[in-house]
């Protein structure tokens, strides 16, 4: 097949189409797999109603076949709660048919004649069979199942229709069941429990004839259907390079001198310290300094809610409403509901849309706590920072340490990990008895002659002042 002949069928979800490099191949057989409650039926229905919405009168309809897992009436009852559902399309464009009775009576041999009848009477452009895996429970033997599948595949390959087989398949099924060998595309839905909440993911296991975005992509179920967050991948390395030498003021009085006149544009700085050391203040000063210089800033916060943050900004002598009009962006997410994938996609979208030049993420400790997979978080952040660096966005990440210094194992290991992806590391200390003098140190500044000494600092009504 010439590449130009490759046609796709959209999933109706732009993010999913991005992951699939356009959509599923037209006239293909695809498996949508996942345990109950992972979102596979919602995904399929959302796609069905997307195609139903754009259907002209003369266009071919869509067939949704239920087998033995759930009657069509029950599927429809719950489907009405989603905004993508359109009752007027049911029966006119989207045809729901049950094959459960025929299957119970005649076994899995009823499937091929049923589909043959459906293609003859409806000529559907899309066929969804939910659940296809349930057919295994009715098969008298593996041989019978293979025979039925062979005949079904022959029929579906000869006639113009795109097929989705839904099922509560596991990873083991994907290795052993024969339908996985004939599938042109396989999409898996997953759910993992993390503390009091669940995280949902999807991944493409197979897509014949096309590249796709590999790995786990976050998703969540909303009243509009599935919200999908394609995994951020590291940008390809440019063949030419440009060594950025422009300095960006930290906005912290007395600190720019410590790092050779300010941070390099496009660099990443980790500001670490215990609770109360002044990390949020440092981050806000950095972001506000951007606003003062007509550089759009984005402050991403997981601890202080917008009201608390507004008070802090006021304490630093700025008016939140006023600076918002000047391009200061706030992104708040509760640490309890924090899903890294959704936050990073939102954050990246804002940066592109608003031409943001300074970003503060307060804090990456919250990111770490919200992530079930430290490696995945690291890869995600690395990709994000590479994108930001290429766009000339200067980034500041705060990290909360447990002790006052970085000499305990846990903090040292984490900081060391973030050190790989950061250009500068700044430590804030609360000081010791009896004076409790706060101190600040820059322990790393890539490509910059910097002052490694500890400097005393105070938090005044103008923010942090370094001496």
């Amino acid at each position, binding site marked *: 097949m010439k590449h130009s002949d490759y046609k796709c069928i959209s999933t109706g979800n732009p993010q999913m189409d991005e992951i699939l490099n356009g959509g599923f191949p037209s006239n293909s057989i695809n498996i949508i797999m996942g345990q109950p409650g992972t979102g596979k039926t919602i995904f399929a229905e959302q796609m069905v109603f997307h195609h139903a919405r754009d259907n002209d009168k003369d266009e071919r309809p869509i067939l949704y076949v239920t087998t033995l897992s759930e009657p069509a009436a029950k599927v429809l009852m719950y489907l009405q709660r989603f905004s993508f559902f359109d009752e007027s399309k049911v029966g006119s464009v989207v045809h729901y048919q049950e094959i459960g009775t025929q299957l119970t009576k005649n076994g899995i041999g009823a499937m091929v004649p049923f589909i*043959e009848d459906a293609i003859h009477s409806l000529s559907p452009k899309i066929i969804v069979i939910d659940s296809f895996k349930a057919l295994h429970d009715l098969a008298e033997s593996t041989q019978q199942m293979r025979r039925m599948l062979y005949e079904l595949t022959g029929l579906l390959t000869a*006639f*113009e229709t795109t097929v989705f087989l839904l099922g509560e398949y596991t990873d083991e099924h994907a290795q052993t069941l024969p339908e996985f060998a004939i599938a042109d595309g396989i999409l898996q839905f997953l759910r993992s429990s993390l503390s009091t909440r669940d995280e949902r993911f999807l991944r493409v296991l197979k897509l014949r004839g096309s590249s796709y975005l590999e790995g786990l992509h976050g998703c969540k179920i909303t009243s509009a259907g599935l919200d999908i967050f394609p995994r951020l991948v590291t940008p390809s390395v440019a063949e030419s390079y440009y060594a950025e030498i422009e300095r960006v003021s930290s906005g912290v009085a007395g600190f720019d001198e410590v790092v050779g006149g300010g941070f390099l544009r496009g660099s990443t700085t980790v500001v670490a310290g215990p609770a109360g050391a002044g990390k949020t203040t440092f981050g806000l000063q950095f972001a506000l300094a951007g606003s003062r210089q007509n550089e759009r800033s984005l402050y991403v916060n997981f601890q202080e809610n917008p009201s608390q943050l507004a008070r802090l900004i006021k304490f630093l002598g700025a008016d939140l409403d006023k600076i918002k009009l000047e391009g200061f962006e706030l992104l708040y997410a509760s640490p309890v509901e924090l899903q890294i994938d959704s936050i990073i996609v939102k954050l990246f979208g804002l940066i592109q849309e608003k031409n943001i030049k300074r970003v503060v993420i307060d804090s990456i400790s919250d990111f770490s706590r919200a992530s079930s997979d430290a490696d995945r978080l690291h890869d995600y952040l690395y990709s994000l920072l590479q994108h930001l660096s290429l766009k000339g966005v200067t980034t500041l990440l705060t990290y909360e340490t447990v002790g006052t210094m970085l000499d305990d194992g846990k903090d040292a290991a984490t900081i060391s990990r973030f050190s790989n992806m950061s250009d500068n590391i700044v430590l804030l200390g609360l000081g010791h008895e009896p004076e409790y003098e706060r101190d600040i140190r820059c322990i790393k500044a890539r490509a910059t002659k910097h002052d490694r000494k500890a400097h005393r600092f105070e938090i005044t009504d103008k923010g942090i002042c370094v001496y």
Partner: protein
Amino acid sequence: MDKVNKVVMIADSDQHVCNLLSRFLADAGYTVTYAADGYIALDSARLAPPMAILTEVLLPRLDGLALCRLIKSDAATSDITSVIVLSVLAAEERALSSGADAFMQKPLEKHRLLKILNEANSKRGLKA
């Protein structure tokens, strides 16, 4: 032509594909015959030439392209029968150089199939 020949032969080894094609054709008023391999198709066509043969390329014993060449080189069938070659392969060039009146790449769709069949018959002056 006194009596319109409305017989279409389907040459395909897949029984379900044959069934469905025959239902499409019957809906459009054709009489359908089957051949499960190339030699059966050739013998049947020589005995009673149909109006058209829809043949799959991947046919047992004698493939669809060879069947097409033999039908078109035989005076008994060449003027009577349209041959439409069907395949999942992009074999249009080979099909046409084998003498096929039309080629249709699978997957098939009822209206497209009937349109191609009508066009092939019209080109040959045959009326459905």
